[in-house]
């Protein structure tokens, strides 16, 4: 018995003529919490719907627990999906919403009551079981929808932007709850998000998608520190990305943006180099630039510096004294914090 919960093989997903996902290969392990991360329209929802069986792939294979389910209809796959819109049944109470799937399975009434109560307990909604969905807040509806999927004990639970409709505070709360829940139940979960912070905070593994293609997968640490492509780097917050335009001498090179160039005193074989704002050194170094903007952000100051190679973003510890707008500062793009990148896959 393999430990692969979901396996997507050469999956092609299309809406009529529009191919949303050209060829997807992805294995999700049992008990894993995977984040499907990517910009709007990159095919995250489409992929989820295909796994759930709400959409028929044009070609390719979907395996769940080692069984080919490509042709199995959605109601027999044992996949749970928490919709971004919750999709609660408006005519049923909270309790009945959660009991819906169990009733279909002709579960004995006593078992239903016990399971539903346990499910509601798990998401902290026991006291609101008799309310109708319309009488619940967004966060409560969200949790009800989660409970409804959980009591079915799905082989995989898919969550489509589960937190995007919540306000900032509730989102943080639910983030923790979701993580705790996943650890408690050990259920395999895939959740969709276009918020990198959410993906980094929650997931065991992040799958970064672009235009229906997986750009990079890895642990949050991997992706945060070692993006491989320009797109991935940009997505996880490398705000300074430059093209390496040529190596001028044995120990120096030129990096370029659309607007200009900078000479660095080291070499790289990569096609691009990237620095996080906190990787840029300000106040010393071989280059000079003019401060175009500075913003105080609690523990740090966020600078925008106009340089020969265009704008550079740099974060400096707030304990250092501020440099005013219009002043000239020296700065350095150190080799140690440079991340070498490929242009694309």
């Amino acid at each position, binding site marked *: 018995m393999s430990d692969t919960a979901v396996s997507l093989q050469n999956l092609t997903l299309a809406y009529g003529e529009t191919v949303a996902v050209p060829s997807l290969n992805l294995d999700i392990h049992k008990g894993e919490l995977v984040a499907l991360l990517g910009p709007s329209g990159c095919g995250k929802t489409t992929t989820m719907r295909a796994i759930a069986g709400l959409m028929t792939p044009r070609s390719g294979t979907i395996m769940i627990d080692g069984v080919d389910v490509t042709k199995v209809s959605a109601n027999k796959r044992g996949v749970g999906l928490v919709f971004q819109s919750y999709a609660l049944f408006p*005519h049923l109470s909270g309790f009945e919403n959660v009991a819906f799937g169990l009733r279909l399975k002709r579960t004995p009434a006593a078992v239903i009551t016990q399971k539903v109560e346990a499910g509601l307990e798990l998401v902290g909604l026991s006291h609101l079981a008799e309310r109708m969905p319309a009488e619940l807040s967004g966060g409560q509806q969200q949790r009800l929808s989660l409970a409804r999927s959980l009591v079915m004990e799905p082989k995989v639970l898919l969550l489509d932007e589960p937190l995007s409709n919540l306000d900032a505070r509730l989102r943080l709360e639910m983030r923790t709850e979701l993580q705790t829940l996943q650890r408690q139940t050990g259920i395999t979960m895939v959740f969709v998000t276009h918020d990198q912070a959410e993906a980094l905070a929650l997931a065991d593994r992040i799958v970064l998608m672009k235009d229906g293609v997986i750009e990079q997968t890895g642990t949050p640490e991997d992706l945060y520190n070692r993006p491989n492509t320009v797109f991935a780097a940009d997505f996880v917050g490398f705000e300074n990305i430059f093209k390496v335009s040529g190596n001028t001498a044995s120990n120096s090179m030129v990096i370029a943006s659309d607007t200009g160039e900078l000479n660095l005193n080291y070499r790289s074989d990569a096609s691009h180099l990237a620095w996080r704002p906190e990787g840029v050194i300000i106040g010393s170094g071989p280059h000079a630039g003019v401060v175009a903007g500075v913003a105080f952000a609690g523990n740090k100051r966020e600078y925008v510096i106009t340089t020969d190679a265009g704008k550079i973003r740099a974060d400096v510890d707030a304990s250092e004294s501020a440099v005013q707008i219009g002043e000239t500062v020296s700065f350095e793009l150190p080799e140690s914090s440079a991340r070498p990148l490929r242009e694309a896959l």
Partner: protein
Amino acid sequence: MGKTWASRLIIFTTLLFLIGPFFIIIFAGLSAGSSLSFPPQGLSLKWYLAVFEVESFRQSFTLSMFLAVCGTLCALIIGVPAAYAICRYKIPGAETIKLIVAAPIIVPGIIVGLALLRYLVVPLNFTVTLALFLAHTALVLPYAVRVVSASLENLRTDIEEAAVLLGCTRLQAFSKVVLPNIRSGILAAFILGFVTSFNQVPVSLFLSGPGVRTLPIDMLDYMEITYDPSVAALSALLAFLSMGIVFIAEKTLGFSRYV
């Protein structure tokens, strides 16, 4: 001040215009005399009671009731799935279908009646009752489709997918999730259809035979021969019946939201 007076006058006149005839009918039916007149000659309930003695009224009432109930039910059996298909699937020409479905509203009823007589009853030997049934079903169908469509459009589609993922077949999802949520729309369509069918004259005009007449047609015939207040009494009773149905519907369903 003048403005309030003017608007009050307009409201009063409008109400008088709308409700006035109804009161005239109620009182004309209360007459103690033997011909239809207003103001009534004396007061008595005898014509209200007499209505129930007229054999043809009883027959035509039964027929009208049958047509209104069964025709509307039949229209709903066709109309609900039709409305669902139009709303949920990108059927090519859905707009055209909607127009065609609305045809019986647009085409004068008298032409529908004549066409049914000419092309169904006469050449195909359809019985008049069957033709009437078909005519009333067709007449009510557009209302059924419209009203049910309206409540379907307000219903989100993702709950059906949610139901499927919880184990429903598509059909179960429809009956367990869609139907309960459009129930009040369906009931509204039923009442609207019932009233429309029951009061229908032009379509039924050509479609009557020996002993087969709808109540409104029967009343017309009756009045041609006997000009007594029983028709007024009957009209008043029917109006009360309709009002009762709509009142109950309004109380239980918030009917006015759908029309």
